[in-house]
C-alpha cells in the first residue's frame, strides 16, 4: 500500500489529456491534411531557392508543431559555400 502517494494527490493528468486532444482534433477535423500544406510550402520554397543555388534534397528538413492558436513551421536548409558557383543565377532568358 502506498498511503503516502494516496494522500499527496499528485497533479491530475486528465486535464492534460483533454487539452492535448482538443488541439489535435481541431487540426484533424480541419482536414485538408497538414502534410499536404507543408509539402506545398516546402516545394515552393525550394523552387525559389533552387533558382539561385544548388541544394541537396537530403539537406532539407521541414518540421511543424501544432498549437491551439498558431502552428509553427520550421524549414532548415543547408546551403554549401560553393553552391552558388555550381548553379549560377539563371534569369530564365535563352541564349541568343
Amino acid at each position: 500500500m502506498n498511503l503516502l502517494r494516496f494522500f499527496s494527490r499528485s497533479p491530475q493528468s486528465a486535464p492534460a489529456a483533454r487539452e492535448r486532444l482538443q488541439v489535435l482534433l481541431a487540426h484533424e477535423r480541419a482536414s485538408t491534411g497538414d502534410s499536404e500544406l507543408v509539402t506545398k510550402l516546402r516545394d515552393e520554397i525550394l523552387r525559389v531557392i533552387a533558382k539561385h543555388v544548388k541544394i541537396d534534397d537530403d539537406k532539407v528538413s521541414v518540421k511543424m508543431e501544432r498549437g491551439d492558436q498558431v502552428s509553427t513551421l520550421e524549414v532548415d536548409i543547408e546551403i554549401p559555400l560553393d553552391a552558388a558557383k555550381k548553379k549560377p543565377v539563371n534569369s530564365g532568358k535563352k541564349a541568343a
Partner: protein
Amino acid sequence: MGKVVVITSGKGGVGKTTTSAALGAALAQNGEKVVVVDFDVGLRNLDLVMGAERRVVYDLVNVIQGEAKLAQALIRDKRLETLYLLPASQTRDKDNLTPEGVEKVVTALRSAFDWVICDSPAGIERGATLAMRHADVAIVVTNPEVSSVRDSDRIIGLLDSKTLKAENGERMEKHLLLTRYDPVRAERGDMLKVDDVLEILSIPLLGIIPESMDVLKASNVGSPVTLAESASAPARAYFDAARRLKGEAVPVTVPGEKRGFFGKIFGRKAA
C-alpha cells in the same frame, strides 16, 4: 545492424502500443538508438502515447509513396536523444502499405538504429502480417484471459509461417509479454494463471506488466510510462523486460507474489 522487433497480439486493446512506447523508451533510456514504427495505418495512436502528435508532418505512407524522405518523416523525441518515431498515416488506409515499400523502409531503419520496434495493428490481415514480415524477434502481447490467449496462439502460427524468417526456414525468436495483469483478480482466481498461459502458448516469458493507473496517467500526459512514472511497478516491469530482450538473465517476479519465477521460466523450453 539493428534488430527488428514486432509487437503483436491479434487482439486489440491488450497493450501493444503502450508496450511499443515503453520498451522503446526503456531501451533508449539505456543509451540504445531506437525507432518505434507505427504500422496501424488509418488508426495511428503511437504518436499520442509518445506525446508527439503535434509534430507529425510526414508518415510511413508518405515515405513508401515517395512523397517524403525517410529522414524527414522521423520525429525525434523531445526528452530522449536516441528515441525516434515513424508515425502511421491517419488519413489513408493500409492498402497504401506495399510489401516492397515496407521492406525498403525497414532495411534503411535497420542499418541506422540498434532497435526497430514495429507496433502492429490488431487483427491477422495485411497490416499485421506486414508489420511482422521483417522481424528478427516477436513480442506477443497477451492478457491473461481466454480470447487474448486464443488470438495470441493464432498470431504465433502466423509468425511461424508468414514471416521472412519462416519462409527461409529459420526460427523466429518469440517472447510472451503478459500485460494488464491484475494481482487482485489473480488472487481471487478469476484470471488465468501465469503458468497456465505459458503452458498453453509455450513460448518463453519476457515479463509480466501489472494493470496500473500509472499507465493511464502516462498516456494522458503523452509520455511512455518508463519516462513519466519511472519508479512505478509497470515501468520497472518494462525496464526488466528491456534487459531480458537484450539477453540479460533477469529474474521474473509475478506481481503480488514475493517468490521469484526464475527457475521456472528458464527451465522451460521454447516451442
